[in-house]
């Protein structure tokens, strides 16, 4: 079955309230939706968010008019859910990073873990709208048109928002490595 046919079949079954279709949908897209929620909300909230997103998926399937791929619509439901949750809870805390279990591992692995923690912290410091575009592009691999569809913004806005998010992340990195003197030479 072609991907579009598979989508159409799943959507029709979801619209009929078929729980088996929702499970298929979760098996196909659950890991990616989890990754999205994990990066938007942090590890502690990700699993709850995935559950809430898939409940919304079967409840709102009737309203899906088929203008985009199923995966794009799923991302839209998930991103909106995360943004609403961030807004509601004003969850702008630093993502909780577990104490490194790799302390006695090799120096290279330690550096990798450290780097991952730093980049996670940097992501959590972005405004929700910037975090959404960088997660959708860099982690979910969506193209600009798909991101525009998910966020319901023009492609040009995706382009500029992504650029600002990257610039902000690089600024944070420079601040971390160079300290306040980096402020004197921020890229424009």
């Amino acid at each position, binding site marked *: 079955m072609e991907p579009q046919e598979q989508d159409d079949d799943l959507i029709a079954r979801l619209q009929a309230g078929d729980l088996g279709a929702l499970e298929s949908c979760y098996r196909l897209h659950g890991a990616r939706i989890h990754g999205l929620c994990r990066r938007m909300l942090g590890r502690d909230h990700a699993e709850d968010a995935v559950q809430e997103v898939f*409940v919304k998926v079967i409840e709102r399937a009737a309203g899906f008019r088929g203008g985009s791929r199923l995966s794009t619509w799923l991302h839209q439901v998930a991103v909106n859910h995360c943004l609403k949750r961030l807004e509601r809870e004003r969850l702008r805390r630093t993502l909780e990073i577990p104490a490194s279990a790799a302390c006695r591992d090799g120096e290279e692995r330690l550096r990798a873990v450290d780097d991952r923690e730093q980049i996670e912290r940097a992501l959590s410091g972005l405004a929700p709208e910037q975090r959404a575009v960088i997660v959708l592009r860099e982690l979910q691999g969506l*193209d600009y048109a798909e991101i525009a569809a998910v966020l319901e913004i023009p492609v040009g806005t995706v382009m500029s928002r992504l650029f600002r998010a990257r610039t902000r992340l690089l600024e944070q990195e420079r601040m971390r490595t160079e300290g306040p003197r980096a402020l004197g030479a921020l890229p424009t």
Partner: protein
Amino acid sequence: MNHESSPAGPANGGLSCADARLQASAWLDGEWPSSDPLREHLAACEGCRAAVDGMRALSARLAPLRFDAPARDLWPGIAAAVSRRRDPASRGEGSSRRPLVLRAAAALVGCAATLGLLTALEGRDRRAGGGGTQAERTHWPAALHDDGGGAYSLRADFEGQLLALLARENGGRQEDGSKER
């Protein structure tokens, strides 16, 4: 790293550094053509080349975060949540409605019981030929406050009197939960 920016000019492809970096960001994503002005700008501007290198390195650093499946299968929880919402007996919305109905029923029962009690007490006073103190021979309707629209509530100053009377009528038996006949 030199991040100083420059305005658009013929020496840098006719692009300002801000425009060049914006376009380069999209070009790295494969969403912007590698145009001559952009190439010329990057060739002439060390700061923008450094910025592009930074963005490229950032993508590489974000790559390990791409694959992040949940540590456990979340499907059982999702299926249970959907079932809960479909089953009116156990869904959250049902439980939020039910107390309202129960509260309304309790209010009606409470009103009926109060009116019944007042009627019974007034009848007892009449049968006793107006015995008891003046306070005990209370004109009970006066104890009710007219809330308008045919609704009545017990006046606060009579509540104490009523409780004292009840305690005397029951001879303290209500404290252990037994009912008066």
